[in-house]
């Protein structure tokens, strides 16, 4: 059987397959040019989803939780806030702000979102800073400092900072703190750092630190990402939106349809890893662990990801994965376009076990997604994953291919224990990693900052 990823590509601009084969991607390469076929679920980008409203979460977290959020917002009514980041689309921060800003506005915390501008030179420098702050080698030149400062200064002049609360996201706009004025003593500035600063390049961190120290508070995504700073540091876990395409409930008919299209047999156990084709996610290690486990238990492996078509490194990793897979008919590789959130959702829901065998990780939102769907989850003990997976209570943490293989075998052969892990994991996400919890944290922080000043 040909790997599905290749079949999907060969099928990308063609017509309907023969009726007897039309339900499986495995046979999608059979084409009849004379008839247009119906596009498969992954081929058409979905229509934009309208922003969610607070009451939409009622069915998930309950009326009492919604009431609590409204109470927390009461003292902030009429206050103004500004969020500043470096991109309006793409990436987790923009995705989160797209949901958070309307919800804060709905609760009458008037929140505005500004995106900084900059040339290629600026974003090349900040990309290098981003990598260096997460531990990569980097030689910080005076030229890079000048570019960083020049673009921050241009944005400082362009953006008005009159709100009660100013929240600057990530290092790119960190120097905007220079816009703070003594005449606005009531104003509170927060630096929200979404990246891992546990072992930063010292030169870049020492360059940024004086800016960060001028804020009133900093927020990190994990305790281990924080630095020793003279300002208060808070922990906000990243979150998922339970109403998004990626996480909302989907009916089983749709799950079946997606599995049929991708040639996945739901009558056999399905082990899935969803992630970019990136060495940090160790997809080759997942293949090795799966092959070890399958000696003892019947199962299939689905590696669903993206990024191989527009990223040379991703393409190289995909090739390594294919080499490791060989002609194994039980391993299905899916290189999906970025709009396939609903299909990923269905794949996760179809899975018996979900694996995220990362060897480096930020927070690991794919783990959060898996836990939310009540799936027994096996994941590498790196980055923010141990915040989500408490070993043997909300999932299984692993440190090696052998460990991963053992946990696959164990969970597939102990379904009651696996089910309990899945249930606990779901509750853990409901408690800590949902958008509604994120809104609660923001309201609490703004209240605390307000009480600390004269707002």
């Amino acid at each position: 059987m040909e790997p599905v990823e290749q079949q999907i590509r060969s099928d990308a601009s063609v017509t309907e397959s023969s009726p007897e084969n039309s339900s499986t991607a495995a046979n999608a390469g059979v084409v009849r040019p004379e008839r247009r076929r119906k596009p498969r679920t992954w081929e058409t980008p979905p229509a934009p989803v309208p922003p969610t409203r607070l009451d939409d979460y009622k069915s998930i977290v309950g009326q009492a939780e919604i009431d609590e959020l409204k109470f927390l917002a009461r003292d902030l009514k009429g206050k103004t806030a500004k969020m500043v980041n470096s991109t309006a689309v793409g990436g987790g921060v923009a995705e989160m702000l797209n949901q958070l800003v309307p919800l804060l506005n709905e609760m009458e915390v008037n929140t505005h979102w500004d995106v900084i501008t900059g040339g290629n030179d600026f974003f090349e420098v900040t990309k290098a800073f981003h990598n260096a702050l997460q531990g990569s080698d980097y030689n910080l030149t005076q030229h890079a400092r000048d570019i960083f400062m020049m673009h921050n200064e241009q944005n400082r002049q362009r953006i008005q900072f009159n709100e009660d609360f100013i929240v600057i996201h990530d290092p790119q706009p960190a120097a905007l703190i220079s816009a703070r004025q003594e005449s606005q003593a009531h104003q509170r500035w927060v630096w929200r750092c979404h990246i891992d600063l546990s072992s930063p390049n010292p030169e870049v961190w020492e360059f940024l630190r004086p800016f960060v120290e001028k804020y009133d508070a900093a927020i990190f995504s994990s305790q281990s990402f924080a630095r020793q700073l003279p300002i208060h540091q808070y922990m906000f876990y990243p979150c998922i939106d339970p109403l998004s395409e990626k996480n909302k409930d989907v009916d089983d008919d749709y799950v079946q349809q997606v599995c049929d299209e991708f040639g996945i047999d739901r009558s056999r156990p399905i082990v899935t890893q969803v992630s970019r084709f990136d060495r940090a996610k160790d997809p080759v290690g997942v293949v090795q662990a799966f092959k070890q486990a399958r000696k003892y238990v019947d199962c299939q492996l689905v590696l669903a990801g993206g990024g191989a078509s527009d990223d040379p490194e991703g393409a190289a990793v995909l090739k390594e994965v294919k080499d490791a897979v060989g002609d194994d008919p039980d391993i299905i590789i899916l290189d999906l376009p970025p709009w396939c959130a609903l299909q990923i959702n269905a794949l996760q829901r179809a899975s018996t076990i979900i694996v995220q065998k990362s060897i480096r990780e930020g927070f690991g939102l794919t783990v959060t997604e898996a836990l939310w769907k009540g799936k027994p989850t096996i994941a590498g003990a790196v980055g923010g994953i141990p915040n989500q997976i408490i070993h043997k209570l909300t999932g299984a943490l692993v440190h090696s291919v052998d460990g991963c293989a053992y946990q696959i075998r164990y969970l597939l052969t102990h379904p009651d224990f696996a089910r309990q892990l899945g249930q606990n994991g779901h509750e853990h996400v409901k408690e800590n990693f949902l958008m509604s919890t994120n809104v609660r944290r923001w309201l609490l922080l703004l209240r605390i900052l307000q009480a600390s000043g004269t707002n």
Partner: protein
Amino acid sequence: MTTTATAPNLTRIPVKPFYFNTSAHLLRITRQKANTLSEFLAALRDCPEGSIFQHSFRTLQEHHFIREGFSNDFAHWAVSACNEPSLAEGLASVDVREFTSVAELRERFVQIVETFLQRNPGSATRPARETFYFCSSESVVIPTSFVAGSLQEFAAGLRGVTVHCIHHHFIEARLRLKLMSNDFSQWLYEDMGLTEAARQLNRIDIYTITLEDVRNQIVRIVERALI
């Protein structure tokens, strides 16, 4: 306490109504952290009281859905990062309900770690697999829409509130009350005269069941008192 209830509890009017509140907490990262058990002991002695509260009382709330195997963050770290199961057992056996002040609770944790390190000096400086980061929390008390002016309304409130409200009144309360009791028992005893129900609530084991189970047990006791 002796039982004095004679009138039908269903129609009994409390001295004052019970107002159900809850609390929201924001996690703060402190300066203390530990990579070995000796560093852990030093940090346990020096950390703010808010950290002791966070890693014992609060963590029980954060993991309210786990039925077994999780007691507090200290015990979890001792076994998962330090591989010291006997220390973990000692730390896990600390029942927060036996303490009416965080200072006493801190003393108990310090004593357990000190005793362990005296007996196992070789464990003091062995690097842990993961760092323990001391956090603390800042809290805001939030009123709910539930108020009980009768036992029936009390039972309805118990069924309707979040488990965080249950934690606030049933577990955290002793730090406010400075009593080996909880808000629910105090109200049942002082305002409703239901001594036995108040006593039964204090016998619920919060470490072997989920907070949802705790709620159900409280409701059952109150419902029995209604008859």
